[in-house]
Each structure stands twice: as C-alpha cells, then as structure tokens.
C-alpha cells in the first residue's frame, strides 16, 4: 500500500466520502427523475388520471378531478427540484409524503380486493395490480430515507 497509518485512514475516508456523494447523486437522480417522468405522463392526460384515481373508490369525483389537475404538477416540480438539488429538503419531504400516501392508497386497494391499474405513470406503463407498485414504492421510500440521513 502506498499510504500508511493516518494517511491510510484519511484515504479510506476520502474514498467513502467520494462514493457516498456519488451514491447520493445517483439516488437523487433516480428518485427525482422518476417523479419528473411520472408527473409528465399524467400532465399529458389528466382525464385518464382522474378516472384511475376514481377507481380507488376513496374520493368523490370532483376531488379526483381536482387532484388529477394538481398532483402531476406537484410530482413534476418536486422531482425537478430534487434532481437539480434546488429546494432539496422541501422536495424530499414532499416525495416522502407522496410516496407514503400512494403506498397507503395501493394497500387499501389491495385489502379491498380491487383489481385496478396503479395509475402511477399514466398510461405510459398501464398495468393491473397493486403488489408490485407497493414494493416499488417501498424501495423508493428507502432511497428517500437514505437521502434524509444527510440532514441528521
């Protein structure tokens, strides 16, 4: 080894710091990019998103219609802020909240035996089922949790 003693431990810390930063950068990009993509897909067709929200049988139609106009823009801006590291804390808070709410809604649909399309990405990836989207959201929540550790 070229480094000895204190130099070796500083080297290891430097490596860990660099890969930690690279890891966080990738996580931010994945999480933020997914939300930008999801938001864009629903901004393109809010009427279909409203129908998909209504199928969860949790909210009346007017609330679904309003949410279909508003939520995609929240997703888009939140994902953009996280990807660009602008308003990062606020974006991370919103992403955590949104993922939690979406996961609870999916779990509710699963418990009630509803055979529905998640509606997570508009009709870009139309797929019936709730288990895989729940698992995906849990992974994304884990990424968000790791990013939160920066602010401990």
């Amino acid at each position, binding site marked *: 080894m070229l480094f000895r003693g204190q130099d070796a431990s500083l080297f290891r810390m430097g490596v860990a710091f660099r890969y930690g930063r690279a890891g966080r950068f990738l996580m931010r990009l994945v999480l933020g990019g997914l939300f930008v993509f999801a938001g864009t897909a629903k*901004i393109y067709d809010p009427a279909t998103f409203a129908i998909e929200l209504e199928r969860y049988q949790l909210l009346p139609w007017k609330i679904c219609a309003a949410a279909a106009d*508003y939520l995609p823009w929240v997703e888009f801006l939140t994902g953009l802020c996280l990807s660009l590291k602008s308003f990062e804390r606020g*974006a991370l808070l919103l992403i955590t909240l949104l993922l939690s709410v979406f996961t609870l809604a999916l779990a509710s649909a699963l418990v009630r035996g509803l055979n529905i399309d998640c509606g997570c990405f508009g009709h870009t990836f139309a797929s019936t089922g709730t288990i895989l989207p729940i698992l995906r959201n849990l992974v994304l929540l884990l990424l968000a949790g790791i990013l939160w550790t920066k602010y401990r």
Partner: protein
Amino acid sequence: MKSVRQAVLILLAALVPAGVTAIVHPRRPPWSEETLAPGEEKLRTVLSWGSVVLWVDARSQREYEAEHVPGSLLLNLEAWDRLFPRFLDQWSPGRKIVVYCSSRSCEMSHEIAARLEQNGISPVYVLKGGWEEWKAAK
C-alpha cells in the same frame, strides 16, 4: 422548518400550472360528471340500444352463476379457450358487445374487451360501473 417552508413553496408554485391545466388543457377532466375511459359507455346509453346489445360477463363462473345480466354470456380469461367458441356462436356482425365485470374498479372487462378486439370483434364497449351499476339501476 426549512424543509416545510420549501415544501409549501413547491406546493404553491404547482398551483399556477395546475390552474392553467384545469382551464385550457384539452384532456382536462370535467367537474360536473365522471369522464368515460376510452371504450366505456354508461348504462343509460347501453340500455337505449335495445336488443342489438350482446352482454358479456367477464367475472368468475361462480359470480356468473349466482346472478348476471339476463341473456349475458360468460367470457373470462381463465376459461377463454372454452368460452370464446360459445361466444362466437351467439355473436353476429352488427351486434354491439358490452362487457362488464364486478364494479367500476374492475379492470377485467377492459382486458376482455381488448382481447375481443384483437380477435376482430367490434364494436366492443365496457359498461361503466360494471355489475354494481346494473344492480343499482334494477
């Protein structure tokens, strides 16, 4: 507190394009009534078509045998190979196929409708609200 402040700013910023969407977007959802998904029809409309309608029940055999729309044919994915020839015996060009499953949250009717169209059957519609809608009306 900084995260809450930033989150509120993002939420407020999203209100502007959302408001524009609600007013001018060509695919904005209507406020007054539910939007029909592509291929869907309301029960009121389907009933007005009269005897030209061929009802297709996309639910399970057990649900179909318990109760179904009078004159409907069972056609689900589980027994497609066995049931589709029976459907073809009853179908003729010019009849309007209306598929239903258990409720408005059920996607099975859309899958059956898509499969029928892939097999050259048209026109095919999906009953908005499904069996629940039929029962509520009767």
